[in-house]
């Protein structure tokens, strides 16, 4: 077994309104920053052990499908790296 850290990034699907991001953007503009757009995302870092990076990814994909993301509104991506 090898130790991995899987990073899951969960984002709203393109076109789904993100009122929190809009509010954050407006706040940054109020602070004098000039920006075109702001998107927010949730990031989960999961430490786990698996036989291979592929197996780790498969396990984490199931976590994303079953809880971390809501497929109705979210897309997600997973990045798996070996842990020192």
């Amino acid at each position: 077994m090898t130790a991995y850290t899987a990073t899951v990034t969960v984002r709203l699907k393109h076109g789904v309104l993100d009122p929190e991001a809009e509010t954050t953007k407006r706040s940054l503009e109020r602070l004098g920053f000039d920006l075109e757009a702001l998107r927010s995302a949730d990031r989960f870092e999961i430490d786990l052990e698996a036989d291979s990076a592929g197996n780790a990814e498969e396990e984490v994909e199931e976590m994303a499908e079953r809880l971390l993301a809501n497929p109705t509104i979210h897309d997600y991506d997973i990045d798996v790296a070996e842990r020192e």
Partner: protein
Amino acid sequence: MTVSIIRFGGSNCDRDAERALSHLEIDAEIVWHEDGLPAETTGIVLPGGFSYGDYLRAGAMAARSPIMAEVRDAAADGVPVLGVCNGAQVGCESGLTDGAFTTNESARFQCEHVYLRVERDDTPWTEAYDEGEVLEIPIAHGEGRYEIDDDRLEELEAENRVLFRYCDEDGELTEDANPNGSKHNVAGVLGDRDSVAVLMPHPERVTLPDIGGTDGQGVLRGLESV
């Protein structure tokens, strides 16, 4: 018959629901989710509140608690299930109903009276009303914006599974009357069966005549339809 009102950690409209059902002389009891669904359950309420502190997404944690598998089984057997507010979020998160209730367009918690148009009068939840009738029912939520893929929404509408829409006093579906930015003003939807319904507004808060109206009574009556 006994209606089970499922209490999760953070539910806070469970007692309101019990009180409202008691007023309608519908037998009901509050059930702690870890105790499982009682065998004699003839109706289920997923009450409002902030289960699990709305962590991750409103309703996400409660939707994955073991009792929800029992609730889905009961729903598939035809037991009426009503999700209100946080219970509606739990319903969508658990797959009982389509779509998702997410952050209000205003990004604020909104607590106000709204008008709902009854889209169907042939379901257990709306038998007491006429199609097109306008109800006045309060909302109290920060995450009530109905979100769903456009194609899926079209299917849902084609299948007549939108139960309530936000409207103005005259029943018009205007942008101004939509309190949270819900797609197509959707306030409540039906599941695969008409005996499963979720809505963000609180019918139990307009059931006791002394506290501001009785427009919600008919919705709760749906729990009697065994």
